[in-house]
């Protein structure tokens, strides 16, 4: 036990035994001396051993897959570290000496050396006759090289082509399908529920693809004038992507007691932008700066929902050109 402790001490705090070995002539101490603290040494030793035991439990727990594994592994590793920390702090505070030394800060400035460096720079350049011209040319070389070297970064994406931001997967006649690919039938769309729809045979992971579909009382629809006929039987479809920050709208607020509660609204769970499905997707509350783009609907002869064209405006979050054009297939 004692030997072990001694070895540990020799490892952690070298040269802090009872006395340095006698050498001639005896040197002045650098580190202040102190009386040994047997209790602190014992405490540190026990903590080191405890840490070792806790750490050794880790491979056992791992090998025998002891349940609950993650928790026990964390406990073993965490305790090993905490005990090790405690041991080291006991060593720092109780075993080795805590001297308080005072020493001068580095001087605020080294004036002679500063002067020398400035002089060095001046004298190195004083044999050049057309200094400004040379420096300008050198600057031009470095700057141009810089421009050349960052040019490949333009390959990362289509920096100037804004067409992709207006392209969607919808076109007149395309069927609306649900998550499993089954066409949405007008007769199956109920009030007070929302449906997520996708374009048939098209990429669902495009921002312009997903729709949110609800059925409203046709008498309560207040769509803008040019959108007459966009909502057959009161069924309206909007882009499911919020015009504020691009999240999917997945909350539908419907009044249970219509006279006292607010009217139906589509709500985005990210920042609670709230849109009015009866009034062309206009913003009722929250940070969105544009209405939800509406998709014109039609019902075909077999009662299935189809797109009547493309959205009323660009899909997704706003950007500088978002109001410039209508989306295209």
């Amino acid at each position, binding site marked *: 036990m004692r030997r072990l402790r001694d070895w540990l001490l020799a490892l952690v705090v070298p040269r802090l035994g009872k006395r340095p*070995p006698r050498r001639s002539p005896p040197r002045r101490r650098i580190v202040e001396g102190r009386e040994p603290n047997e209790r602190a040494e014992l405490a540190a030793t026990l903590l080191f051993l405890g840490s070792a035991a806790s750490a050794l439990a880790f491979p056992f727990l791992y090998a025998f897959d002891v349940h609950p*594994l993650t928790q026990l592994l*964390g406990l073993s590793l965490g305790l090993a*570290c905490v005990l090790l920390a405690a041991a080291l*702090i006991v060593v720092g505070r109780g075993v080795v000496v805590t001297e308080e030394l005072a020493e001068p*800060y580095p001087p605020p400035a080294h004036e002679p050396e500063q002067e020398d460096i400035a002089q060095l720079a001046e004298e190195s350049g004083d044999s050049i006759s057309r200094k400004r011209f040379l420096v300008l040319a050198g600057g031009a070389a470095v700057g141009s090289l810089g421009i050349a070297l960052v040019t490949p970064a*333009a390959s990362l994406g289509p920096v*100037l082509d804004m067409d992709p931001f207006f392209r969607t997967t919808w076109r007149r006649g395309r069927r609306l399908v649900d998550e499993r690919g089954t066409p949405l039938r007008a007769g199956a769309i109920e009030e007070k529920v929302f449906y997520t729809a996708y374009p048939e045979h098209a990429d669902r992971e495009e921002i312009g693809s997903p729709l949110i579909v609800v059925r409203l009382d046709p008498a309560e629809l207040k769509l803008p004038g040019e959108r007459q006929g966009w909502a057959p039987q009161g069924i309206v479809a909007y882009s499911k992507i919020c015009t504020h920050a691009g999240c*999917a709208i997945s909350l539908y607020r419907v009044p249970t007691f219509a006279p006292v509660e607010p009217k139906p609204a589509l709500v985005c769970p990210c920042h609670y932008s709230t849109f009015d499905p009866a009034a062309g997707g206009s913003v009722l509350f929250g940070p969105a700066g544009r209405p939800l783009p509406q998709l014109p609907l039609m019902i075909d002869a077999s009662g299935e929902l189809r797109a009547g064209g493309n959205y009323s405006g660009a899909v997704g*979050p706003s950007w500088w050109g978002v109001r410039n054009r209508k989306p295209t297939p």
Partner: protein
Amino acid sequence: MVGRAQQEADAVIRKLVRLVDERTASAPFLKKALRYVFPDHWSFLLGEVALYSFVLLVATGIYLTLFFDPSVATQVVYHGSYEPLRGQEMTPAYKSVVDLSLHVKAGLLIRQTHHWAADVFIAAIVLHLLRIFFTGAFRKPRDLTYYLGLTMLTFALLEGYVGYSLADDLLSGMGLAIGYSVAMSIPFVGANLAALVWGAPFPGTPAFWSRMYIAHVFIFPILIGTLLAAHLLLVALRHHTQFKRERESERTVVGIPMIPGYAPRSLGLMFAVFGVLFLLGGLVQINPVWLWGPYHVAASTNGAQPDWYLGWLIGALRLMPGFDVTVGDYTLVPNPFWGGVLVPLVVFAILFLWPWLERKATNDHGFHNLLDRPRDAPWRTAFGFALLTWVFVVFLAGSADRVYVTFGISYESQIWAYRVLVWILPLLALVVAHRVCVELQRGEEVKRLRCEVLAKRPAASRSP
């Protein structure tokens, strides 16, 4: 320790020292470095906590890269052991995170420890920043150190965001949609910038995942590591600041030398940080991605919250009234710009400009090794407290939806209240903090005067 063992140990040390010095000629430097003094105060340890969290982040992060697959180009169907996800389509990226968590032994421990370490890393940086700010430690000659620290904080925020975005779970996808919208909202160039970074309109090309991955595991860690080295070098070159007690002065630094007093304490702190993070990683669940499910553009969930250090940005985005600034058909300022770009820009601009602003306001161009107590500089403390209050109120606004769910207070009225409070409370904080500082100063002055009077009174008159 006596006799031979001691002599042997000494001989080994001497041999080692000779070996190092003969090859590096560094004995004079090492002799000084080992006696480098550290002034002692609990608040000086916050930076060390950040440093040690970073060490653990790198270590656990390397382990995670051995299992994570950063590809989103294809969709695979899950057939693993976690029943609720069976049969679902997901990207290899998400699947590898689920497998790492549920199938790889010790994988979940390391992943959760990594996530906790990120949260603690940024918390420690922010507390460290507050300490530096309120004690005036950013003043000359340590202004450069302060700028490096702030730059590291911005990189740490981005690094954390990219890190939890990589998992491609539902929350990560929602976060990326918001990040994309914020990038798009930058006036004049937003869409071009987003097209450059994402390669295509959201959710972007699969190459975007490679870009995030290399940024998270290489570019940002290298940047942070390099700045960290420069930060520590600058600290050491100019030595630490200290509070005025007895022997401390602008010319003399007082503290515990690295060997033998300080090194065991600091190593102790390191293992304490590691220990707490492993305990959190093992015992306290964080970001259970298998519960969130894979991300799809059409999916989202209510009650989504980011990691704490982005809470102020979600609050700022939610507080803005709904409008885009337009000129004809041209959209000048899309809405997310205010909360997602301008708010962080203003906060970091104030922090970056503060040393210069304070020099202008106080005309103090001096050299400072001694720290202020917050009360010693009432206006700095007041402004700092006001800024902190502003950010904190915005942060609270980000939790209005949870308050609505928990306490039933209408979300809309909360947002309206916050839209007012966000301007009133910082002003109130400014006034109160200034007043408190001045009162504390006066209290000290009164105490000092009283002592003086007592000392001056002749000894005879004191005893009746």
